[in-house]
């Protein structure tokens, strides 16, 4: 390698591909928002609509933070949509049993955390791929939610709890605040703690991580547990919005979450990624969902559009990661 090269300018300015991707997606987002605004004659940009988008995106972000941790380690979780429903059902039933709502929320988070602890342990110790295990959990969790609730929504009648999904702190909806806090904490943990660094290490090269003295099983299980807590929380927020625990909530949600994460620059192979990326990706997906709905586009076309965006996102992910030679 030429160290004392006169090409010092090119040598120093190694443009971080991750940052490039984030910038690219941000620009795309702005363009998309502009397009929707014009097409909807300003309805997209209306504050009420933006609040709706923000609320929807909040749920994706809360779950997305957990799944980002999982994906950075090189794993995946396909069951988050089912967990969302399961959390809501669990919460609603706890409240029905008379548990104070705040405690019920905490219990829900712990319950999901425990569930994910089991899932994570199976994946780590049995060395099964997370794809298959979480695919199975997708059905199992949905089945539990449906059978427990008898297939019907479980209503929650508790005014103070309603705040969590529908209330405001000043001008900002509470779900947004929750998502914002989770995001900041998540990004901080990822970048500034040893745990976060180990997460990148396990995803980057699991064997090297083990040789370096990292307890890779513990890291893998931990990211699933974190995701469990966050999904439980998101399920509660959603239940708050719906005034009920709904057994059919979150169908297809995992696609939105994974799309957000990949658009945001997290690699499917692990080792790379950031929370900020997930945030921008979630806004992208949320904007598409919302914009197409406002414009009256039929659901079927919305699905196609979403699928194509995901496809594009993955292509761009590969394209920017490869060194062009």
């Amino acid at each position, binding site marked *: *390698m*030429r*160290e004392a*090269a006169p*090409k010092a300018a*090119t*040598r120093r300015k*190694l*443009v971080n591909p991750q940052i490039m991707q984030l910038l690219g997606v941000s620009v795309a987002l702005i363009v998309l928002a502009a397009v929707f605004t014009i097409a909807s004659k300003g309805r997209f940009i209306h504050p009420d609509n933006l609040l709706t988008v923000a609320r929807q995106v909040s749920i994706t972000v809360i779950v997305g933070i957990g799944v980002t941790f999982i994906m950075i380690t090189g794993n995946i979780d396909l069951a988050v949509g089912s967990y969302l429903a399961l959390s809501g059902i669990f919460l609603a039933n706890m409240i029905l049993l008379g548990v104070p709502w705040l405690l019920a929320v905490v219990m829900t988070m712990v319950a999901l955390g425990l569930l994910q602890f089991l899932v994570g342990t199976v994946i780590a110790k049995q060395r099964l791929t997370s794809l298959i295990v979480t695919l199975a959990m997708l059905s199992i969790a949905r089945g539990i939610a449906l059978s427990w609730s008898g297939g019907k929504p479980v209503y929650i009648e508790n005014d103070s709890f309603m705040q969590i999904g529908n209330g405001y702190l000043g001008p900002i909806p509470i779900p947004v605040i929750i998502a914002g806090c989770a995001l900041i904490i998540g990004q901080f943990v990822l*970048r*500034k*703690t*040893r745990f976060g*660094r*180990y997460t*990148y*290490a396990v*995803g*980057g*090269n699991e*064997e*090297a*991580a*083990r*040789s*370096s*003295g*990292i*307890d890779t099983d513990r890291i893998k299980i931990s990211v699933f547990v974190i995701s469990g807590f966050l999904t439980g929380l998101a399920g509660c927020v959603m239940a708050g919005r719906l005034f009920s625990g709904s057994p059919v909530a979150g169908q297809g949600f995992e696609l939105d979450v994974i799309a957000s994460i990949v658009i945001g620059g997290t690699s499917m192979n692990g*080792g*790379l990624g950031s929370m900020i990326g997930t945030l921008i990706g979630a806004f992208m997906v949320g904007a598409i969902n919302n914009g197409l709905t406002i414009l009256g586009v039929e659901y079927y076309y919305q699905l196609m559009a979403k699928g194509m965006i995901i496809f594009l996102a993955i292509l761009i992910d590969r394209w920017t990661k490869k*060194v062009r*030679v």
Partner: protein
Amino acid sequence: MSSVVVEMKNIRKQFPGVLALDDVSFQLIEGEVHALVGENGAGKSTLMKILSGIYHQDSGSISYRGREIRSLNTRQVRYLGISTIYQELNLCKNLDVAENIFLGKEKVTALRVLEKKHIHEEARKYLSMLDSAIDPSQLVDRLSIAEQQIVEIAKALSYESQVIVMDEPTSSLTLKETGKLFEIIKRLKAQGRSVVFISHRLEEVFLIADTASVLRDGRHIGTKNVKDLTYEEIVKMMVGREIEKKHAKTGTRAERKQGEEALLEVSNFTVTNLLNDISFKLYPGEILGFSGIVGAGRTELMETIFGLRSRVRGEIRLKGRLTQIRSPKDAIENGLAMTSEDRKSKSLFLNFNIRENVTISFLRHMTKSGFISSPREKKFVTKFFTTLNIKPKDTEFPALTMSGGNQQKVVIAKSLSTEPEILIMDEPTRGIDVGAKEEVYGIIKALAAAGKSIILVSSELPEILSLSDRIIVMNKGAVVGELSNEEATEERIMAMSV
């Protein structure tokens, strides 16, 4: 027989952050064996990858048999007559020899169905050109590395290749297999083909090559007939400075003190089918070499000691105390460290930069009030830039784009970060150039002089002879002999290894 087969003129190739090739020219003559030498990062592999179509040059021209070739993909280049055989070997292990040779050129019947009958005969034809008795219906997975290499060469023949590029072909071969390979190269030469031979092992250049071209830092330094060259001259061209060729046998330890206690004692290590009742001792401040051929079990032994593998039986005593090591974490906490044989898959994080790679085992000490402090990390890592001469001296430089030698130094830095008392180094100079090798030897000697104990696993006899105080020879999973620095010679070690 002096027509030019390949002519590469003024090739320039820029990668993000580094100029890999700067105005490099290269000429290959019909029927010659042309060695391409240079330090890691000098640009040899890059130049050949451009020739074979994997990369495209930024500027400069390539002609094959007088005709300029431009923007060809690897498949087209193969059909043109230029084949490349890589160090990592590009065979499909789940297919048999014949299927591999005809991969991409499968014969089909009129109904587009694969025709399997004739390929075994055809394959035999090419294998016999190389005087090889390999069975074409044998699964490649079952073949040794040397045999797989022969299959690759047969594949090149099946494309009627006039130019065969071999990138570090001898790195995984025994002495005997290397001899066989050279026979094959001579045959290819006799058939009028040309061979480009990339190798670090300068002794081989003198054995097999007609011409040698030296690259350094992306520039072409010179091309000469091998018979007009001396070892010192090549090294000087490669490195830009004089290097001692042979090391004096330097045991770095003074006479072992009477009754000195072993720092590490390994007893009765057994792993089913891999290790058989292995015991040895390691003393403070000594360099203990482990010699043996590929497959003798040395790496497996080290991995077991370090906690990466579980054993059926065996005990470890550190300073006399029975110690449980069940994971690398335990090993590190007990003052051990290891650099693995295959850094890319086992030790190096390609998604990390230098700083993140070096500190990963020692993060606990990089924190300020519980959170990672970048300034502290940088300060810690910068020390290693000087002691190990890592280039570039930039803590944020991505490991992915570093040269092999510098990557290896980063791995060594990581292993030293935890201040171990015992350092296990498995093939620490594999795939790195003469200059970097010397630096690593200096580091090893300095560590031993400072009182650390080093276990050195190496397949390079000169290396192990010049560094070790004692040498343990392994064969088929067992210890077959132990030699002191004075008694050890290459012949004696080889005799015990086979």
